[in-house]
C-alpha cells in the first residue's frame, strides 16, 4: 500500500499535473474574476467600527505567504474563501460545523477550523494551508509510509493539525498525539497509522528547514 501511494505521488511530480489540476482548470477563471485590484481595496471605508456588508466588501488574506485581495460578503467563511475564491481545495468541507477537522488550517501557526472562522476575521493573520507543504514534507511522507490514510478525505486537515502539533512537540509519544490531534476524526479509522506517522515526522521535522 505504501509503495503504491508513493508511486502515485511520483507520477504526479513527473507529469506535473494531477487530476485535480485538470479539474480545476475551469474554476481558476471564475476565481480570477473574484480578485480585485489593490486600488479598489484601498478605497474601502476607513475606521474600524464602520459597518460593512451584507454585500461584498474588500477582504485581504495572507495565505501561504501570498497576499490576496478579494471581495467577499462578511458571511463567507475562511474555508469557502480558500476553496471557492482562491482555488485552494486542500482544506475539505465535511461537517461545516467545527466538529470533524477536515477543514483545519493554521492561523498564526495555530490549528483552527476554517469552516468556523469568517474570512473577514482572518485578515491580518498568517494563514497556512496544506498547499504550502511540499510533497516531500516529512509529515506527508510519514503519512504515506505508515498508511495514515485510506480514502484520504480527512488527510489534509489531519496533516495540518499534525504539523502544528509536531512543531510544538518534537519528542511526542503516541499518547500525546491522541490528545494533540483530538480535533480531527478519520471515519476510515486509520488512527494507528496516523499516530505512528506523527511521532516519526515530529522527530524528523526538528531542525529541518521549512518544516
Amino acid at each position, binding site marked *: 500500500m505504501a509503495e503504491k501511494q508513493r508511486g502515485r505521488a511520483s507520477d504526479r511530480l513527473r507529469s506535473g499535473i494531477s487530476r485535480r489540476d485538470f479539474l480545476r482548470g475551469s474554476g481558476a477563471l471564475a476565481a480570477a474574476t473574484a480578485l480585485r485590484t489593490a486600488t479598489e481595496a484601498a478605497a474601502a471605508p476607513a475606521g474600524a467600527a464602520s459597518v460593512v456588508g451584507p454585500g461584498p466588501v474588500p477582504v485581504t488574506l495572507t495565505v501561504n505567504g501570498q497576499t490576496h485581495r478579494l471581495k467577499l460578503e462578511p458571511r463567507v467563511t475562511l474555508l469557502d474563501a480558500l476553496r471557492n475564491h482562491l482555488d485552494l481545495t486542500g482544506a475539505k468541507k465535511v461537517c461545516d460545523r467545527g466538529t470533524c477537522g477536515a477543514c483545519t488550517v493554521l492561523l498564526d501557526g*495555530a*490549528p483552527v*477550523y476554517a469552516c468556523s472562522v469568517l474570512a473577514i476575521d482572518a485578515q491580518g493573520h498568517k494563514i497556512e494551508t496544506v498547499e504550502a507543504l511540499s510533497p516531500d514534507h516529512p509529515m506527508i511522507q510519514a503519512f504515506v509510509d505508515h498508511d495514515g490514510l485510506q480514502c484520504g478525505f480527512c488527510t489534509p486537515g489531519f496533516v495540518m493539525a499534525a504539523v502544528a502539533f509536531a512543531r510544538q512537540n518534537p519528542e511526542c509519544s503516541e499518547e500525546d498525539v491522541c490528545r494533540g490531534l*483530538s*480535533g480531527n476524526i478519520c471515519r476510515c479509522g486509520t488512527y494507528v497509522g496516523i499516530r505512528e506517522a506523527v511521532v516519526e515526522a515530529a522527530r524528523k521535522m526538528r531542525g529541518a528547514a521549512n518544516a
Partner: protein
Amino acid sequence: MNAFEYASPQTVQEAVELLGPGWQDSAVLAGGTDLLSLMKDGIVSPRRLVNIKRIRGLDRIELIGDVVRIGATVTLEQLLRDATIAARFPSLTQAAAGVTSPQIRNMGTVAGDLCQRPRCWYFRAGFGILATGPDGEPLVPAGDNRYHAIFPEGQAYYVHPSSLAPALIALEATVEIHGPQGTRELPVEELYRIPGSNNERELNLGPREIITAITIPANGVKNATYEVRQRQLLDWPLATASVALRLSGRKVVSARVVLGHVGPRPRRATGAEAVLNGAELNEQRIEAAARAAVQGARPLSRNGYKVQLAQVAVKRALASLA
C-alpha cells in the same frame, strides 16, 4: 447562513453602540465556534455581527491584588496554558483541558464558553430552547433524552453546555457586563435563567450587553473539576463536578460543590456542601456528599445513568483534594 452586516470596533463603548435592541438585530462575535454553526443551521439569524476580538485589553489574564481578571476574548487555549490560573485555579485548567479539540480551544473564548447555546438536539433542529412540538408540548420527556437533564427546571430539559461555568461558580467568580446603562457585575451563578418560552434566552443578559471580563477572588481555596465522559476526546462530558474547599488541615471550613451537564443551569449542590461543611474530608464524608449531591434528581426515561455518573464526578473531584 443568511447575509449580515459586520463591524469590528476597537472599544467596548463602540461595540455596545453597534448592538441593536432585539436578539434578531445583532449578535456579539468572539470565537464564533458556536455562533457560526447556529447561523448556518438557521437557529439564529442576526442582521449584524459585532466582532469584539479587536478590542484591546480583552485578551489578557491579570492578577490584580487578590483578584484574577480574565478578559472576555481570552481563548480556552490561553486559559489552559496560563501559569497564574494553573497555580490558583486548577479546576479551571482542568475544565479548559476538557474542551478536547485544539482547534476549538484556539478560537473559542472564555466568555463564549459561558454564552454558548445548549447542545440539545431538539433545540439545534429548530424546536426551540424548550424543545416543543406543534401544540407546545415538550418533546424531551417522551423523546431521545439520553443526554438531557436529570434536574430539569420548569419546561427546560436541556443541559447547559458550559465547561467553565461550574468551576467559576464554585470559585465565586463574577462577570463584568457592559451595556447602554454602563457597567454591572453579576455572580456567574446568577448569569443563567430558565426561559419561560421559546422566545426567551437562557442568560440574564440583554441583547445590547457584552460580557467583558470574569473576575475570581484568589483566596486560596483548594479546587478541582472532574468530568465523566463517554469518549475521552472531542465530545462533551456526560456529567461534571467542580468543587472549591476552604480547608483547615483535613477539616472543611466551607465547601462549594457545583454540578455541570445535569440541568439547564450549573447546579449548586447545597446538600453536598452541608454534608462537607465543618466535617473532616474522608472517604465516608465524600460518599455522603456525593449521595446528597444527586438527592432530588428526576431523571428522564433514558438518562438515569447520569445520576450515578454525577456522584462519581463529585467523589473524584473531592478525592483529588483529600
